[in-house]
């Protein structure tokens, strides 16, 4: 879907991207992660030509991005940013309709799409359609921002630290929405973040950048279990490594089917990290487990958390 070959970009003689190659396949959710100055935002913006690369090739659907008109390219890629950038003089519906209007959709099709997206992002269309951005909370604004990026059903969604400015509650909620949208739509998503937990939670693949080069490229599990070097370990955080590993697995993987236990049940979809928290909080070593519709599934023991890690 997107491919970079030996791409370089320099600002004032300093290389922001240094001979980088990367191929992103259809349906992947790739997190570009790194410290500030690692080139992750530059890399993202080279895909939709907000930044032009100096050397190498950037391909979209097998064609060089330079062969497209920038507007045409960008209208095929959703774009959401940390500072959201809703248009303050337009109401929510008009904001979401930005790209469909540019593409010349009919009014009826746009109205239907706006309502569909508001509902998808958990905002009641009847309440929020006519509101103006300044009447919304930060979390609601970013929901509208994501809805706007998705409006014309783009082939690729580019997101530049989209949840970075949100409070933890809203950030978690929107991360879950994004994961759900990704699962349901199978869209290719490229997400820039400096939050390792966000990358591990959402991404199917994590690309760690340092000084414009790829340091490690793999699944979240690979990043945690086999860090390429000490720098990667430092970035992940040695102290929380165990917790983050637990965060990669769900209770469903370790549940002892049919076994009974006392106490309030936990959901099988919970991560082991969350389960650990429940064990410690309840001072117990056994918890009953239920499935998605509330049926008893079995139990999990405290020791199961350590079973065949990785």
């Amino acid at each position, binding site marked *: 879907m997107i491919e970079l070959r030996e791409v370089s970009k320099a600002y004032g003689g300093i290389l922001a991207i240094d001979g980088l190659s990367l191929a992103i396949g259809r349906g992947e959710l790739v997190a570009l992660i790194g410290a500030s100055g690692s080139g992750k935002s530059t890399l993202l913006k080279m895909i939709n030509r907000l930044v032009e690369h100096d050397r190498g090739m950037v391909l979209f659907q097998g064609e060089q991005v330079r062969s497209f008109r920038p507007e045409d390219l960008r209208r095929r890629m959703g774009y959401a*940013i940390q500072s959201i950038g809703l248009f303050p*003089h337009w109401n929510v519906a008009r904001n979401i309709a930005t790209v469909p209007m540019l593409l010349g959709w009919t009014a009826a099709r746009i109205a239907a799409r706006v309502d569909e997206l508001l509902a998808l992002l958990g905002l009641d269309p009847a309440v929020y359609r006519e509101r103006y951005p300044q009447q919304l909370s930060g979390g609601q604004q970013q929901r509208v921002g994501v809805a706007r990026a998705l409006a014309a059903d783009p082939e690729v969604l580019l997101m530049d630290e989209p949840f970075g400015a949100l409070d933890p509650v809203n950030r978690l909620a929107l991360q879950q929405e994004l994961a759900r949208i990704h699962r349901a739509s199978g869209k290719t998503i490229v997400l820039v973040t400096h939050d390792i937990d966000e990358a591990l939670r959402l991404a199917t693949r994590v690309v760690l950048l340092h000084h414009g080069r790829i340091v490690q490229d793999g699944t979240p599990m690979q990043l945690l279990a086999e860090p390429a070097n000490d720098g990667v370990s430092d970035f992940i955080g040695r102290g929380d490594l165990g917790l983050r590993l637990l965060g990669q697995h769900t209770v469903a993987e370790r549940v002892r089917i049919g076994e009974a236990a006392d106490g309030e049940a936990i959901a099988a979809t919970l991560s082991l990290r969350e389960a650990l928290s429940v064990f410690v909080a309840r001072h117990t070593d056994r918890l009953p487990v239920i499935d998605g519709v509330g049926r008893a599934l079995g139990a999990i023991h405290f020791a199961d958390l350590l079973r065949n890690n990785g």
Partner: protein
Amino acid sequence: MAALAFGEGSPAAVLVRNRVLLVLCLAAAVVAFGLAFVSVAANRLTTGVGVALHGLASDGARWLGLPASVLLWAVFAPATRRRHAIVAITGSLLLAGLAWLAGREALAQSASLPSLARVSFGGGCWILMLLAWLAAADALQRLGLALGWRSLAHTALWLPLLGLLLSGGLDALSLLKEYDNRQDVFNAAGVRHLQIVGATLLPALLIGVPLGVAAARHALFGRNLFAVLNVIQTVPSIALFALLIAPLASLASALPGWGIQGIGLLPAVIALTLYALLPIVHGTASGLAQVPAAAVEAALGMGMTRRQLFWQVEAPLALPVLLSGLRVTTVQVIGLAVVAALIGAGGFGALVFQGLASSALDLVLLGVLPVVALAVVVDAGLALVAAALQGRAR
């Protein structure tokens, strides 16, 4: 702390709930008894003899007791929206009432005086009208209305006075006699004044807005442009008018038949346009500068072209600031157009300078007052438009 020790403890400070109004009332009392309310002169050019409020030939001064007691009550009444409204209405009616009183006195005097004699507003009357307006304007401010309603209310303050003027209640006053004698000249001056303002604003907008856009896009160009515009702004208007006479006169002799003249409307409009550029360019540039960078990035990132970005995002978001620049410009041009009469451009300034030359003060006023009124009305009108635009974005 000093205010606490003195203010809170003393009984007067507890009772006085509106210090501004108290000061205005005290000043009004001093002026009412100390200064001439009308001035009576043998003819339109001589200096008149002052008549104080209590020495008026006509009765009616006692009616002033009514608004005076209402305003005094308001000094001590609790600060409610009702009180503010009452003060605003009283101030507005008092403003008209004072003019009515002067007009009534002029009518009463004219019976006993020779036909050339003139009765004009005295210094005391002017100051009392100013104080009444201040009381009303202050009360409107305290009402805390939204921008659009506020400018409407401020305009409405003048309605009783306007009604009085139109109903002929002031016709016996010298100012209105002056108008009566020069009605045609006055009307022509008004039309010409509006022509000057219109002919200035149109090119100023056509040139200023693109320059403002360019200044916002290119920082270096913007700095140089503002340096030039600032220098223009510091040249005194009379000097600028005079400076244009020579080049335009030579242009006129080089291109006969184009209607170019070294004096008259053209140099006036050119000079005024040069003055008007700074606020318009500045309004445009700072309007564009305050468009959120995130909105611009999002617009480009979603595939707007430069042109779509400008018309759909930047221009609408910059418009309120441009409009406030236009407000400043329009009021400034309406005022400066008076001076343009010096180089034969006409307008209300012609009345002013004619009056100054013949030391006929009422003729000067006849030129100045409509200019002030025009500026106030246009300012309020543009404020209304700005408020409507803002309201749409809320």
